């Protein structure tokens, strides 16, 4: 169980994390979603006691990180796979971590086996590929057999095989009753990995709900409209308060349902070729909810960013 209560982090005038309150429960994979720069890593660092919150608290099983006796046995974390001395072997890296928390030495070989690094355990970690580093990081997180696991962008830069492996792995950990807290800016990835979503933008909480609910809620009012008279119809839709996103030859309307659009079309003698409700992607859902809160729109991808800008402008 991970809890944040009014968690706030300021760097000078910049507010990285703004009054964040959420909880991640045991037995579930909780996705921590937000664009780059939304404050995900900062939040995770505060959970782990690495950064001091400006105000608010971050607790794990009701305790602050500093209060945990052998923290690695309670919380395992992978924040950055590159946090390994390049000239130290994988085994040596895990050995000192185990030693620090009174974890038996055989556990080192066990976790190396679990992540499939046994054959390169004696090799220097600096020569590892990103996928191998990521596995080593996960081995470190699993070392103390903790009930709470935190992963920051674990699939970043991995090949499809690695992504699949990590996804399966998270599910297995959650099925074992552990709390799994995974951050990502890859919304599609989270749709496949997470049961619950905590969505933030610019350090603020945007939504906490189940993944299903989140997608449904955000996309229920998106309708695709195709019409030869689109140019004439657009101002009508805008006047009715709808958000419009152009797609080649059609427009995605948000804020109005099929019935309302159909009636508007009839009233203005507009011929429609298509009128279909969209079960939008998680991306679209996110952009719609987080539009205002996206700080660096360019990092998503230019098309999505343009959509977001329109959505925001249309409001």
């Amino acid at each position, binding site marked *: 169980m991970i809890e944040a209560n009014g968690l706030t982090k300021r760097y000078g005038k910049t507010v990285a994390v703004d009054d964040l309150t959420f909880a991640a429960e045991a037995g579930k994979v909780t996705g921590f979603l937000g664009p780059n720069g939304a404050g995900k890593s900062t939040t995770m660092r505060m959970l782990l*006691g690495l950064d001091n919150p400006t105000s608010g608290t971050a607790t794990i099983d009701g305790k602050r*990180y500093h209060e945990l006796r052998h923290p690695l046995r309670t919380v395992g*974390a992978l924040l950055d796979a590159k946090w*390994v001395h390049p000239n130290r072997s994988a085994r*040596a890296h895990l*050995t*000192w971590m185990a*030693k*620090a928390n009174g974890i038996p030495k055989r556990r080192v070989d066990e976790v190396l086996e679990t992540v499939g690094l046994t054959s390169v355990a004696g090799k220097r970690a600096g020569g590892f590929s990103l996928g191998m580093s990521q596995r080593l990081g996960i081995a470190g997180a699993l070392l103390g057999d903790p009930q709470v696991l935190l992963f920051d962008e674990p699939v970043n830069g991995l090949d499809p095989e690695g992504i699949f492996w990590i996804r399966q792995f998270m599910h297995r950990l959650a099925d074992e009753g552990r709390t799994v807290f995974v951050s990502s800016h890859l919304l599609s990835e989270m749709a496949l990995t997470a049961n619950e979503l905590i969505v933030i933008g610019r350090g603020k909480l945007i939504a906490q709900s189940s993944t299903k609910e989140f997608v449904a809620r955000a996309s229920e009012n998106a309708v695709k409209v195709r019409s030869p008279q689109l140019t004439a119809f657009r101002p009508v839709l805008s006047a009715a308060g709808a958000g419009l996103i152009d797609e080649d030859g059609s427009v995605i309307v948000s804020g109005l349902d099929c019935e309302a659009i159909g009636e508007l079309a009839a009233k203005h003698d507009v011929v429609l070729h298509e009128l279909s409700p969209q079960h939008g992607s998680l991306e679209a859902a996110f952009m719609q909810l987080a539009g205002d809160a996206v700080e660096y729109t360019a990092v998503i991808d230019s098309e999505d960013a343009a959509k977001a800008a329109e959505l925001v402008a249309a409001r």
Partner: protein
Amino acid sequence: MTLLAVERIKLFTTRSPWWCAAVTLAIVIGFAALITGTADFQVSVASTQSGYGFGLAVIMVLAALSITTEYRFGTIRTTFQAVPNRTSALLAKTTVVALLALVIGEAAAFGALGLSAVMDSGANLALSSAADWRQVAGVGVVYALTAVMAVAVGIMIRHSAGAISLLLIYSMLVESLIPLIPAVGEDIHRWMPFNVVEKFLSGDGSARGAAAEGPPLSTSTLSPTLALVYFAGVAALLLTVSLVVAKKRDA
């Protein structure tokens, strides 16, 4: 104890401490061999320790790197994750590095003395006075305390290049240039740590024998013992400040 073991594993599973130890030994002992082999004066206990200052520089590099590489590679965060009490984690590291510096220093100093004795069997290199002992056995102690200072500076600066340049420029240049300041320069210099600790090592130069060859003696007015206490005090002060800083700062 556990934390000391942790830091020992961390230190010895990387290469730089081994290299730095080897280089220190090579420099200090090699310098003694060079002096003893070419001296046109009577070789003394003090003259066998001429390479001390160069070894000191390498010890600073070793000690500073032991902590700055942790910041460089992010392992300091893993360390603080495993040991949230930063003060004890960093104290353990400082202790291990200081002990290593002590061992290297003693090995280098006695190695230098021993090799000189072998090379020049006629020289009087017996440790027959407290001053002689300080000159040789003191090297390890000074290295250990210097290592503490270097770790402290490393904790504060966090960058290898920055910490090492600061340490080397200070110890090699700043202290020896201060006396050039008119009127007050000498007075300030009298209290600068590396000048003071030279008093502990060479005292009034009695370990130099009849030839009395060597660099200028320390201008410190302290007794050798007090000089060491003063030097240790400076190291403790720097370490305390660095620990406070590390505790307050985001890792």
